[in-house]
């Protein structure tokens, strides 16, 4: 399956993903129920994350989602506040060893639920309407994983958060009634604008910048969906964008691939925190 195949689907792109995954109606129903379970786990992690301000094991994060969620909406942008709070809720749960759904990885787990459930709750979309979009998100992840290993240690953060943002952009677009081409182009635009992002977590822990990065890239996914729903497309074919990201991943030096030895991790404060935690 390629992104071109998905974009050419006559109905919603998720139909093709589900047909590829499940040969029979029984299988299809089983996959959809599995996705429903995932969606509920995502929601449960958001709810716990918005209520908790318990610190992570390193003490660097743990209160940001709750702080944002309870802050006055100064910018009068409730969708923005909701999407970011949801995304950080998941990643702060993750950082404090709570239960989350890796999507596609634990470090990028907040982006998809932040964008998809954030938009759904903002507009009052029900759960059944989100199952197809969630399947499409998975299908986008499957296609990307054919070209590169989805891990910060092999492709940098672009491989993790870029994939999650692309998956989320496609899912939001389909949930809003976008056709297959619009959904796939939303993914491509999200990916194209994540290329080059390095994986430089302080101490190697999935906290800084990971928690705030999930907030930002859930918004990035929604922004991409907004462009795609308006008819904006990627002039570079989506499959070529994936290959471009894979090639940039190979060009990244090891210091910028989850080793905690470059970028934000390699600041005086970042190094001090890493040393304290290693004791």
């Amino acid at each position: 399956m390629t992104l071109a195949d998905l974009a050419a689907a006559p109905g919603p792109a998720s139909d093709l993903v589900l047909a590829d995954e499940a040969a029979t109606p029984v299988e299809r129903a089983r996959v959809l129920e599995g996705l429903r379970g995932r969606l509920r786990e995502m929601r449960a992690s958001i709810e716990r994350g918005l209520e908790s301000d318990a610190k992570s094991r390193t003490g660097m994060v743990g209160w940001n989602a709750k702080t944002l969620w309870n802050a006055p909406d100064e910018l009068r942008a409730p969708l923005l506040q909701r999407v970011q709070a949801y995304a950080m809720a998941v990643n702060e749960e993750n950082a404090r060893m709570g239960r989350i759904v890796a999507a596609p990885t634990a470090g990028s787990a907040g982006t998809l639920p932040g964008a998809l459930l954030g938009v759904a709750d903002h507009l009052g979309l029900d759960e059944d309407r989100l199952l197809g979009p969630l399947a499409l998100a998975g299908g986008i992840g499957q296609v990307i994983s054919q070209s590169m290993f989805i891990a910060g240690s092999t492709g940098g953060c672009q491989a993790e958060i870029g994939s999650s943002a692309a998956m989320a952009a496609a899912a939001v677009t389909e949930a809003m009634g976008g056709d297959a081409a619009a959904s796939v182009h939303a993914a491509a635009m999200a990916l194209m604008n994540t290329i080059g992002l390095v994986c430089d977590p302080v101490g190697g822990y999935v906290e800084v910048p990971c928690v705030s990065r999930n907030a930002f890239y859930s918004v990035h996914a929604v922004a991409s969906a907004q462009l795609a729903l308006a008819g904006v497309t990627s002039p570079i074919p989506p499959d070529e964008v994936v290959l471009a990201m894979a090639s940039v991943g190979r060009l990244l030096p090891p210091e910028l691939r989850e080793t905690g030895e470059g970028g934000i991790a390699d600041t005086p404060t970042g190094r001090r925190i890493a040393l304290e935690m290693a004791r």
Partner: protein
Amino acid sequence: MSLLDVIGPVMVGPSSSHTAGACRLALLARHAFGAEPRRARFTLHGSFAKTARGHGTDLALIAGTLGAFPDDPMIPRALDEAAARGLDVDFATADLGDVHPNSVRAVLEGEGERVMLTGSSLGGGLVRVFDVDGFRIDFSGSHPTLLLRHLDTPGVIARVARVIADDDVNIATLVSARRKRGGDAMMSIEIDRPLTAPARDYLRHLRYVTWLRELPEVMRGPDGDAVESQGVSAETEVAS
């Protein structure tokens, strides 16, 4: 990769490689041990050695040794759980050589038995075991896996494969390793579904098979999409 592997797994954080993968490697070690271990010693390599505490790699390894899957909410409390269940744990760091940066060697002991398993967490929660008791085998935990120790004698592989085929089970991968010709050898065989009990008994009682374990598939937890449940998995005892 199935859809539920991309949108998943459901896991206790913070890291699919350093937490979920570590838990799975320890879970495979537990099943290779085949009983309730009394002592567990973990040697951490590379990134595992450097960042274990902040990632909860230590807790995940202990929890896996106790039989937990990566989505088990017990993981953060694994130290207390180990104390309650009488498991002594111990951590060391070492250079395990030219292996993946996220690698660990687990030695489990108890009741006169001992098993040593070395593997890597490859990212996204995927794992690979490449050494059991010094034999260079290879399996991923994404299938039920047979581990057999046997004498290196002509026809063993054919005989074992025949028993599996007669049970109508498909072999996904088979890796065989021996210390020296005619000596001690081991096979890891990844199969598409668990063997039936009679087939397993038959294999265990083959003359040249000295040790057999059937490890469960560990990529899917006991939640919802479990292929088989934890605890009642089909591990086999040492041939007596």
